[in-house]
């Protein structure tokens, strides 16, 4: 039974506004969005905001506790690490490494995935079948294993792990884009466009893509949490960002030796990774709920 949809109001809201209407009342998701915006601005603006040089070592101030403890200093709000570097500045810079690079990796991967997914989604036959089987293979290989291979070929380093993560995220994007396009191709309005004489290219750009971008955003948020966790995990294992770099995972690995003396040097970077991933997941979940609600109404 098809529902008859009537529009009573004179001005109907656009899909984006409707989405926001369903997204905003979800408090946790909204909170996550605020956190994400803060983190994003931190990732971009961090070179102008850090109170101290994140790499400046100060042998007078080793392992100063956070300022809320009695022996802490106000000018070092979150204390210092085992080389006397200001932890707060390092954590702020870490936002642009761990979170900022994760965003870039996801965007890059999404873009390539969009092109390849569109190519495979719009084509049929043996070529697309072989492509799909190769994709299925790539989807099953664990991302960390892929990263290990790439690091073994190119050598350890933050940039190489970014390539690895982009490559590891790619198959799921292609898969997602292809499925989204296949879903769209079944819709009546696509058939209507076809009957009007639109060719494949016009169909893709003016009908299918505008209707799939929300799904793309959803995929992007899910991939973003994976990317942040992977960058941090590789940094922690020592095959990603190397030691002096203020990447959150690498900072945890650096501070492991002083975990007895200065637990905050391990706890704080981990807490930031956790908060970042949580914020991304909150927004992703909120978006999914909002999209579902909009479809139901």
């Amino acid at each position, binding site marked *: 039974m098809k529902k008859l949809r009537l529009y009573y109001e004179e001005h109907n809201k656009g899909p984006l506004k409707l989405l926001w209407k369903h997204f905003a009342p979800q408090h946790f998701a909204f909170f996550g969005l605020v956190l994400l915006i803060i983190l994003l601005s931190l990732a971009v603006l961090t070179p102008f905001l850090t109170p101290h040089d994140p790499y400046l070592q100060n042998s007078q101030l080793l392992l100063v506790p956070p300022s809320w403890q009695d022996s802490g200093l106000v000018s070092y709000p979150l204390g210092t690490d085992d080389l006397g570097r200001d932890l707060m500045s390092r954590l702020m810079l870490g936002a642009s490494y761990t979170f900022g690079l994760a965003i870039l990796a996801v965007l890059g991967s999404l873009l390539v995935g969009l092109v390849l997914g569109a190519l495979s989604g719009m084509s049929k036959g043996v070529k697309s079948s072989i492509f799909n089987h190769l994709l299925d293979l790539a989807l099953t290989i664990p991302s960390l294993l892929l990263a290990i291979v790439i690091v073994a070929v190119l050598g350890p380093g933050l940039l190489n792990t970014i390539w690895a993560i982009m490559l590891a995220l790619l198959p799921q994007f292609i898969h997602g884009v292809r499925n989204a396009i296949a879903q769209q191709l079944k819709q009546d309005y696509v058939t209507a466009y076809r009957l009007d004489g639109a060719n494949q290219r016009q169909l893709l750009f003016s009908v299918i893509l505008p209707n799939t971008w929300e799904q793309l955003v959803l995929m992007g948020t899910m991939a973003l949490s994976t990317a942040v966790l992977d960058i941090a995990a590789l940094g922690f294992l020592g095959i990603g960002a190397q030691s002096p770099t203020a990447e959150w995972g690498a900072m945890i690995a650096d501070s492991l030796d002083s975990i007895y003396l200065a637990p905050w040097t391990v706890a704080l970077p981990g807490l930031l990774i956790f908060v970042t991933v949580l914020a*991304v997941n909150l927004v992703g979940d909120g978006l999914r709920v909002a999209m579902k609600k909009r479809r139901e109404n």
Partner: protein
Amino acid sequence: MILHYLFRRLFLLAFVFVALTVFAFSLSYLFPGDVLSNFTGLRNISPADEVMLTRQLGLDQNYLQQYLLFVQRLLQGDWALSFSSQQNVLTEMLLVMPATLELAAYALFLSLLVGIPLGIVAAVRKDKWLDKLISSLALIGFSVPIFWWALLLIMVFSLSLGWLPTSGRLGVLYEIPTVTGFMLPDILLSEQSYRQQAFIDAIRHMLLPSVVLATYPTTVMIRFTRDSMLDVLEQNYIKTARAKGLTRLQVLYTHGLRNALLPVTRQVGLQFSTLITLAMITEVIFSWPGIGRWLIDSIYQRNFPAIQGGVLLVSSLVILVNMLTEIMHTLFNPLARKF
């Protein structure tokens, strides 16, 4: 029809394995260093040996010939030697593999045991406080970085409270002969007088890594079971069953669970890849002598034949498990059959 389906799957599996071996083969050329060393795992090759080995491996012939010889060596179990120990990579991996599989198996068991009931409860009490509590906990577990979580648990349970050991599979006091490679069965099979103490010690060692490794799959299970259950509860046959006069519990058991848990079985196979990835990190933190730690060590040592072998073995295992669960799922679930 089923035979036709199985045949197609088998063909796909063969295709995937060919692609995988081609990838592994090309790694010998992609890795830095001498190609001959990467293929054989020998470090200092004398000029006389070099000529001999080049002929033996077919390196003077075209790539196809080299690849065929490579696959032949793989099938004969004649894998490259590890740079660090000069042992056959395959035998080395078969020694460390059971530890990883054991850990992953306990974690998977734990995640099913906790995740599925919690997911069902959350779905049944949808939007009540219990559902909100379970869903928030699942979201938190979903977001926590596993290495940090492991460190937190070590800090609390091992360093502060001193209840559980931080590393290894078994205390050094106990000596258990290796029969299967799996610790708990090995202890039960052994004849030592301290069998019981060793068993308890092994469980104490296993507890923290298993819990850490199980965290992520458990949350995935909760979310997946909840969604699947909610989908099923909205179906018309549930309403029909209620209208027939069945109690909520009866409907849930006979109509809800059976249908909702079918997709969950498939999820178990998909989780395997994630489990292996996370097991690598867990093993490094808890010094668990499994394949993950062995692989990460190989990276530090730039042990290329070991990395090549590890990638080949672990990927094959993951693909095999995935394929098997998919076939099982298709056989069990008529809705998933497309043939």
